[in-house]
């Protein structure tokens, strides 16, 4: 008799717990992962590129280069996710993306991400951030770029990566924006000077 009353409650509790676990699990983010939010393609002829390379594909890329380029394979094996968004800017969305980029920068700074590169030249604004674990290991890298009035670029690499390895990663995964940011990070001093001169 008692069981008859208790059973529905037990089933209900278990169902709620399972649903909550699933819901939280689905939103669980890796250390070093950044939630840039969803990006919508611009209306009209604007450009939109989204690349989301999951662990499985990175492992495949590592397998491909394992014998000939073990250092690259080692780098790739240390990564868990690569996400790149390139959004073309036009009169409609330019202001919104500039505001959004600024907000993401502030969020990153507030969440303990270390800003390691700031390059401002003419209308190009590049910021690269690193997320470090307590023991000094790199957990992830994020880059926010506003390229003049043409593009906004958001990059998140989850895993052990150094900024100077970005160009190599972009080269191996054939993602040009990564290569471009990599080049920027390799000569930040020069660009910072230009900012001061301006």
């Amino acid at each position, binding site marked *: 008799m008692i069981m008859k009353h208790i059973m529905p409650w037990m089933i209900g509790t278990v169902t709620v717990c399972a649903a909550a676990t699933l819901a939280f699990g689905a939103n669980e983010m890796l250390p070093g992962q950044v939630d840039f939010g969803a990006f919508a393609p611009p209306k009209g002829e604007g*450009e939109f*590129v989204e*690349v*989301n390379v*999951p662990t499985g594909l990175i492992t*495949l890329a590592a397998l*491909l280069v394992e014998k000939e380029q073990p250092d690259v394979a080692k780098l790739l094996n240390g990564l868990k996710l690569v996400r790149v968004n390139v959004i*073309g800017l036009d009169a409609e969305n330019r202001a919104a993306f500039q505001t959004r980029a600024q907000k993401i920068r502030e969020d990153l700074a507030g969440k303990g991400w270390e800003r390691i590169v700031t390059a401002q030249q003419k209308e190009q604004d590049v910021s690269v951030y690193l997320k470090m674990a307590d023991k000094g290991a790199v957990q992830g890298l994020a880059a926010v770029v506003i390229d003049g009035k043409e593009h906004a670029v958001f990059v998140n690499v989850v895993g052990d990566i150094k900024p100077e390895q970005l160009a190599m990663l972009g080269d191996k995964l054939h993602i040009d924006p990564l290569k471009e940011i990599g080049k920027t990070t390799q000569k930040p001093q020069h660009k910072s000077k230009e900012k001061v001169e301006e």
Partner: protein
Amino acid sequence: MEYVMPMSQTGVPPLLPWLASNGVVPHGWTPPGTSAGTPSRRVFRIRAWYVVLALVLCLPLLGAIGITGYFRLSSPTQALRSSVIESVPGQWDKRFAGRVGGLTLGLVWFISHFFNMPPEAEAALAALHGAEVGVYNLHDAPSTLDYSAMFLAADKRMRRLGWERTVGVARGRQFVAVYMPRNLRTVKRMACCVAVLNEEDLVVASARGNLQPLIELATQHLGDPCERAHQLVVDGTPGLFRRGF
């Protein structure tokens, strides 16, 4: 109490009665290879004929299903095609839809052993477990396309089937979406589903297979396998990744 099996004079145990008499066992079942025209044997024959008849009748049906299978797309490819088509207003015409499954490719792979084929082709055949492609044409296309709605619809449908978007590109009148299974963990069970809309032509394609033979071949013979793979796969859609900022 001790039981002693009766032995013949040659020292060999005698055959069971129904085997020795080449007749019918008391419960009616007739062992194969015996010859007797008893009613119980007729029952067995009738059952066998039923099976043969069913097979004969089913063969054309199975054949028809098999043949139509060559022109039917699998559910992920269908879902991707439908989501794109439903997101773009206009009149869509099917140009072609074809599919080659594991059985056919296995047969081709088996037959290829009788011919002297280059190792690259053999590896490709061994790697590919299935492939399909559909080509569609859009009439009365709208002047601007809502790529956001197209990605949303495709993502929603594909996510339900366990696929995640890996690449999304929209530029001008070009739209590309590449999906891969969410639980992709091994190169032995790779799968990929792609939709490419260029002006008024839509191509949806998918392939699945084991990339291990191709990787082995690539690491043995080709220079930079990543570069080669990129040339083969990405350069097919020129300029998609070759954009700086």
